[in-house]
């Protein structure tokens, strides 16, 4: 394959990564924005989404379409409820102290991961995609002064991958509508701006926190259900989404939803492209160092106002 089609393929894969990452990272950004705590167990909620999707689709049996649709509806709800429960039983008790919350969520990370290992086992298991038609992509090239169309071998995507990208866009639009157009969104934004003042105005801050934490985890689980027909479900799969979401949330400016989505696009696309052309380990080294240096030198994110 020539360089052009190769790059095109990398961009297609990058767009898929970006779509899933935007969902996962917006969950993390929502939790950080509203509650001012860092949820280190976020990646495990993602993993739980994938594992539960496998479980639900096994239970449903029959055609993969129904199993998948059922998983799509039920799994984010289940994970969200679990996260809200964690919030009410653990995080509330330590009064959302930022440092202790990190330590506690590290503990939750290991609990979720290891319980999955004990019940689901160490195997990676696939979920059948509901539809998966191969779509070959054309490539245009100028030769002898005329535009030629041809179909390079290997330059293709699947209908399911395109559908994931579309679904991610729809969910993100829905999230935007929820935050800006509904009463719940208003309450969350009020809590985000000033917790004490929100309490003084009679906003049930505790319940808003539980909902925000559940919603954040639910978004991660939704992203996982969407990606699990492409990647398999495995108990250690939470590490990479956590790292990437961290990168995205920090570069996009801590707690800012639009910033996170923009950064997800940037990171997802560059991750796809860099991993195709360079060693993935090298790409990760640069990404982690980038996060560290952004936090050290631009603590409000690359686009945030620098008022430190």
């Amino acid at each position, binding site marked *: 394959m020539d360089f052009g089609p190769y790059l095109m393929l990398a961009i297609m894969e990058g767009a898929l990564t970006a779509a899933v990452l935007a969902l996962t990272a917006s969950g993390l950004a929502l939790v950080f924005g509203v509650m001012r705590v*860092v949820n280190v167990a976020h990646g495990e909620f993602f993993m739980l989404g994938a594992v539960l999707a496998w479980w639900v689709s096994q239970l449903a049996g029959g055609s993969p379409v129904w199993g998948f649709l059922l998983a799509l509806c039920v799994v984010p709800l289940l994970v969200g409820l679990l996260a809200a429960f964690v919030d009410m039983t*653990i995080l509330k*008790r*330590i009064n959302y102290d*930022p*440092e*202790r919350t*990190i*330590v*506690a969520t*590290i*503990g*939750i*990370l*290991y*609990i*979720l*991961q*290891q*319980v999955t*290992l*004990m019940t689901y086992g*160490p195997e990676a298991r696939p979920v059948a995609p509901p539809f998966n038609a191969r779509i070959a992509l054309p490539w245009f090239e100028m030769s002898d002064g005329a535009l030629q169309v041809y179909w390079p071998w290997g330059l293709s995507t699947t209908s399911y991958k395109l559908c994931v990208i579309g679904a991610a866009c729809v969910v993100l639009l829905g999230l935007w509508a929820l935050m800006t157009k509904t009463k719940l969104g208003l309450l969350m934004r009020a809590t985000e701006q000033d917790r004490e003042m929100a309490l003084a105005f009679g906003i049930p801050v505790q319940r808003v926190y539980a909902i925000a934490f559940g919603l954040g985890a639910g978004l991660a689980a939704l992203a996982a259900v969407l990606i699990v027909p492409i990647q398999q479900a495995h108990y250690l799969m939470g590490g990479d989404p956590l*790292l990437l979401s*961290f990168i995205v949330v*920090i570069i996009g400016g801590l707690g800012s939803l639009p910033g996170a989505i923009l950064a997800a696009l940037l990171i997802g696309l560059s991750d796809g492209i860099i991993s195709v052309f360079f*060693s993935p*380990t*090298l790409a*990760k*080294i640069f990404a*982690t*160092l980038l*996060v*560290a*240096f952004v*936090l*050290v*030198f631009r*603590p409000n994110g690359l686009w945030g106002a620098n008022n430190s």
Partner: protein
Amino acid sequence: MTTDLKKSVILHAGVVLALFVLQFVLPAYHHGNMARIMVLASYAIGYNLLFGYTGLLSLGHALFFAAGLYGAGLAMSQFGLSAGPALVVGVVAGVVIGAVVGGLALRTEGVAFMIVTLMFAQAGYLTILYFGAYTRGDEGFVIEQAERVLLGADLSDPLMRYFAAFSLFCAAIFTCFLAVKSRFGRVLVAIRENEERASMLGYDVAKYKLGAVVLSAGLSALAGAGYALLFGYVGASFASVQYSIFPLLWVLLGGAGTVLGPLVGTVFMFYLIDLSSGLTTAYMLIAGVALVVLTVFAPHGVMGEVRRRMWRWLP
């Protein structure tokens, strides 16, 4: 000498003496375990200097431990150094990396400090994997028994190994005790309690914090280098996030900001994980539950509670 100081000197000397005597009564299996625990507890003591006394929570101490481990290990396997100089190389590597990481990470505070240290450690771990040709990545490499000789003592011999681990632990706990009782240590505690006030009183807070990071990194690297020499294995898993979480867990359990806390926490957690790994492969579950229970119910840890309820003089 005040009575409080006398009491704490007697207590710590007693604990050290008990550890020394223990080697003559322990059965072989626990004998080996105790040697390992003393090395890991030295690592926890290094961690505690930063977390317990200075109030800086690092999530990247595996980087310093691994700096010592790989500094010593690679010096022996790649450059053919003998054990003594290799130990020095390991500690120097830890101190240098500590100074660089500390200099950068201390520009941030609180949650950002935790994430920056985590990211630096992660980058270090990935770097070890990337240079797999020399480090052999996850698989790691073994240091030959013939090379593990320090001052004429064969460190692979169980008795010698116990004694070496004991010496390492003594060095760590003595350093910690001295540091805590010194003017330097008191300033660190002042920074932990109220950084702005310490700075208002005229202390150069940034300098003291950097000093704490470097000292902590140096002790962690010493433990790492000791681990490489004593147990002859160097692997990337010691640089992973898990080994940054472990010292935090040990210190939290034993009691942050107490000299003996790291030892108590390490012994307790080591045996808890040792017992549970016999039952299930999911032994990290214990660590997770312990972290949650400790943060929610017992933020002071074992020795912290002892200090709060009985011995207020405990350093």
